[in-house]
């Protein structure tokens, strides 16, 4: 599973960071990077915040990719030398509909637990 892999990769990376006192972690927040070598283990709260941010980013990236693929399929049937006005408005509608569809599916899944 994509997200599980990302979570475990980031967990690995964080445990490596804890062992390397001075290594710069591109994902670390300003408060935990660039500190003196005396203390470098981020607190649990910082880790949890970082993870939440990274997960939110992963969800957003995945969603973006899905929407891109679906709307390309639906709206760009005969690629021209530029995006036409109808293609652009189709894409805008497609994005809105896809977000709406995600809501319909979520609600249907969670109202099924009666």
């Amino acid at each position, binding site marked *: *599973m994509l*997200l599980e892999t990302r979570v475990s990769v980031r967990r690995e990376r964080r445990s490596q960071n804890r062992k390397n006192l001075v290594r710069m972690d591109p994902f670390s927040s300003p408060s935990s990077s660039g500190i003196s070598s005396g203390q470098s283990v981020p607190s*649990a709260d910082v880790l949890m915040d970082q993870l939440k941010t990274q*997960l939110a980013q992963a969800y957003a990236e995945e969603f973006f990719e899905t929407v891109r693929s679906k709307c390309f399929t*639906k709206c760009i049937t005969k690629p021209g030398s530029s995006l036409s006005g109808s293609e652009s408005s189709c894409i805008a509608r497609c994005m809105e*509909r896809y977000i709406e*569809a995600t809501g319909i599916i979520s*609600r249907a*899944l969670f109202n099924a637990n009666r």
Partner: protein
Amino acid sequence: MDSSPELQRFLQEEKQKAMIAEMVGKLTSECWDKCITSTPGSKFSSSESTCLANCAQRYLDMTMLIQKKFQSMQQ
């Protein structure tokens, strides 16, 4: 600190949430393909939105059916 119980619990929760998000994403993707056959409009027709809701629920029904079948196959 390496595996404080608070962190463990948090990771479990986030893992759960990630699994749910993945299922919603995958299901939306498949149901979109099944239900939205024409160019997207400025709103869903009632048949399209019904199809989407049905799609999610039938997927759950199917999951239970498959589980039951597996169980009976193992006996």
